[in-house]
């Protein structure tokens, strides 16, 4: 009986090509297995064979989502894989997004089971859990030894068409998919049980967790705009030519502060957009569409606003984890307050 | 309180056009009525009835009638949240399956039920 053909996806680091300096590497295919592929092959056993490993730099993937996907699908096609495993990506955000994206694409294109593994805080989990099985892993490669067997076990279940158990049992992140089953007690009995636990202050388990909304109370409104100091903050990925701070095109891990002293408008000779989540053509032609410097300078001259700050803050919104966004917001807020800014225009894309 | 009905149901229009304001959106779908209400909410209108009234799911009945009224200046956030949640719910159903093209008899039945859902609300009197 022939072995089940597996294709493995790795980024430049796990493929032992290089670190951050190789993150722009374009998709390549190598026959057989590389690096973590050994652990995967071992966990899968003799009935499976990793026939090829596809490698792509995290930056390249993030900045060229469409192209990266289509090139990788082309590379894989001749191998007629029956199973696809990406990563695991642990807590690496860009890698997680790449794994999630390519696994979803492969599943859709070839109709084969595809899965990956990530740490709970990896933004890829929130983004892809509904579409893919994502095995829970530790937050660093130290967790490889524990992760691979779980990936392999779940992969085999998917290949054999076995019923997938609850998240806790099979070790994957809860996908938020509601599935029916028959309990041995009827709903009303369970309600009485749950109520008595709650009334007595005992622990209880809801059968449907409410979605969590992190609410921020709004600041008090500005009475007189003509006295306000306004600053622009954007998640549109606008950065100076050359992206000196190397802000990522998706899943940003940093933000930048850029000077606009003496400028009446944003010029395309000075600024670009590196955002990987929208078609930047219009903004590359006229960055004022994302950073409305031209209009705000006019309003400043006319006295409609008190003063415009001579800088703007910028980062990339797409794929950026809620956790990171909170960190950026808090830090930017502190800096703005220290500079006497009283109002912010936040442009998103 | 001046009631304004936004509806795509001819029965509702016929019954109430002389009674209060009716925005009759002829030949549009369920979601379009929700969008029209949402747009007005952003122009300071306030919801008086629940946008998802009735057990007929959004991909079942083509008819929807909602009563709104002019609010104070600004935007009523409760109305915004309610209409947006309703739109999301409606889109979810329509994504699974589109509203079928029903026979005239069945469309008449849907119109009758939609009218009835509004009737009770129309009888309410308010004193503000």
């Amino acid at each position: 009986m022939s072995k089940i053909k597996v294709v493995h996806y790795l980024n430049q680091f796990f493929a032992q090509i290089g670190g951050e300096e190789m993150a722009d590497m374009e998709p390549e295919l190598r026959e057989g297995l590389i690096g973590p592929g050994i652990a995967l092959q071992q966990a899968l056993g003799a009935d499976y064979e990793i026939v090829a490993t596809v490698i792509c730099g995290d930056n390249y993937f993030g900045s060229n989502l469409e192209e990266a996907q289509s090139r990788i699908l082309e590379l894989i096609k001749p191998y007629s894989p029956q199973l696809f495993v990406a990563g695991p990506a642990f807590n690496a955000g860009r890698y997680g997004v790449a794994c999630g994206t390519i696994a979803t694409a492969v599943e859709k294109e070839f109709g084969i089971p595809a899965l990956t593994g990530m740490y709970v805080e990896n933004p890829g989990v929130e983004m892809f859990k509904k579409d893919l099985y994502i095995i829970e892993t530790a937050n660093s490669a130290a967790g490889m030894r524990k992760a691979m067997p779980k990936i392999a076990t779940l992969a085999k279940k998917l290949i054999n068409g076995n019923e997938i158990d609850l998240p806790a049992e099979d070790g994957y992140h809860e996908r938020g998919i509601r599935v029916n089953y028959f309990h041995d007690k009827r709903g009303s009995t369970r309600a009485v049980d749950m109520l008595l636990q709650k009334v007595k202050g005992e622990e209880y388990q809801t059968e449907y967790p409410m979605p969590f909304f992190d609410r921020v109370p709004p600041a008090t409104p500005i009475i007189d705009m003509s006295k306000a100091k306004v600053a622009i903050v954007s998640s549109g990925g606008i950065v100076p030519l050359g992206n000196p701070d190397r802000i990522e095109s998706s899943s940003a891990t940093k933000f930048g502060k850029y000077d606009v002293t003496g400028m009446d408008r944003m010029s395309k000779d000075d600024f670009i957009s590196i955002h990987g989540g929208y078609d930047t053509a219009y903004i590359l032609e006229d960055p004022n569409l994302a950073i409305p410097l031209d209009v705000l300078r006019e309003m400043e001259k006319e006295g409609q606003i008190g003063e415009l700050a001579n800088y703007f803050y910028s980062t990339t919104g797409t794929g950026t984890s809620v956790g990171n966004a909170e960190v950026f917001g808090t830090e930017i807020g502190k800096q703005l307050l220290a500079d006497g800014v009283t109002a912010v225009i936040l442009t998103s894309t | 309180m001046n009631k304004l009905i936004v509806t795509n149901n001819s029965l509702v229009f016929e019954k109430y056009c002389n009674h209060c304001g009716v925005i009759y959106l002829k030949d549009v779908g369920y979601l379009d009525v929700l969008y029209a209400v949402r747009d007005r909410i952003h122009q300071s209108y306030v919801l008086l009835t629940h946008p998802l009234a009735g057990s007929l799911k959004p991909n079942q009945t083509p008819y929807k009638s909602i009563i709104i009224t002019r609010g104070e200046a600004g935007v009523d956030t409760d109305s915004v949240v309610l209409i947006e949640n309703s739109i999301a719910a409606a889109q979810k159903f329509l994504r699974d399956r589109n509203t079928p093209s029903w026979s005239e008899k069945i469309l008449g039945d849907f119109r009758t039920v939609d009218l009835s859902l509004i009737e009770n609300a129309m009888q309410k009197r308010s004193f503000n």
Partner: protein
Amino acid sequence: MKLELGKILIQDVQFGAKTEVVDRTLFVNKEEIIELVLEDDRLIGADVELARPGESVRIAPVKDVIEPRVKVTGGGVLFPGMINKVEQVGSGRTHALVGATVITCGRIVGFQEGLIDMSGPAAKYCPFSETNNVVLVIEPADNLETHDYETAGRLAGLKVAAYIGEAGKNIEPDEVVVYETKPLLEQALQYPDLPKIGYVHMLQSQGLLHDTYYYGVDAKQLVPTFMYPTEIMDGAIVSGNCVAPCDKVTTFHHLNNPIIEDLFARHGKDLNFMGVVLTNENVFLADKDRSSDMTAKLCEFFGFEGVIISEEGYGNPDTDLMMNCQKVSQKGIKVVLITDEFPGRDGKSQSLADTVDEADALVSCGNGNVIINFPPMEKVIGTLDFVETMIGGYEGSLKPDGSIEAELQIVIASTIANGYNKLAARGH
């Protein structure tokens, strides 16, 4: 109020010359039933068929399901304010033919209520696949206005259930259960150390085919009020809801409210069941504010430490459910909600149309959007003409060979949000 409920177990149903119960078999006189139904000249046709557990029978489209019961002693008659005069019920002795039902069937509007399969894969989702059913198929007069037809159909079912219930009046029950709720202060004193628990019962109240009646009063007109739990056992609450099959609370389910039953089962043991607050689910938003404020007020006034809240319906009622949950919780009362879910075909979307932070204890009655397949049945009572227009059905649902592919929503009471069934949903 104290009620003795005498349960007469029925294991079979047959036609007979006389409507009576003999050795656990219910015999019904077909002609008398038809005559009774046709007393209402809004109906020009009626037929009676029988459907027993395990038979290859499909019933569609279903309007209501009612359990035949009869008041033996204690004042009042069944279904007060509906087919009988308004008189307080809930005390004395009532007999129920347990294991038998009356099902009304027949078209009211183009999109019909759902179906019941007596065997096969769909049977496990519906409690009435396990009861012996007297199915009343009704036909309206030509051009009968929809509201009138709904009323006529509703009353026909109640009348027939009451008529059949009479057969149990003088039978010695197989089991007698005693339910008692004392007046508030006495009830509190009866079990001073047990937590005081209440039940907030939300009644469907949106309009035509979406109504419920309490002593004949349309629930849309109610302000929240108190009900002794035993009143419901005599038919004080009747269903006029006839649109969404899966979470329809039939009159049978009102008579056999599982939350009331389960609370009584623990009453005096680990809880003190104080009573029921009734409220509604109106479409007019100001009514929701009023009803939820008053519901919370009553719960606080009655000294409830914990309440279970159940709803009927989806969408608009979810808002009432959350408002009640929030306001009652804010009074310091612990709340558990029971509801069904509609997270879309793939189970990935939001299950409820509304949410509040306080809704942290929820019992799920299942996902109604799941697609199920059920084979053709040898016999159809009623008609399958409307399957594709039923909620849960769609174009192509009814296959040429009579098999059906549809959402679970199409099966009567499959995901009913009062916890009657064992079906639930969980997160994968």
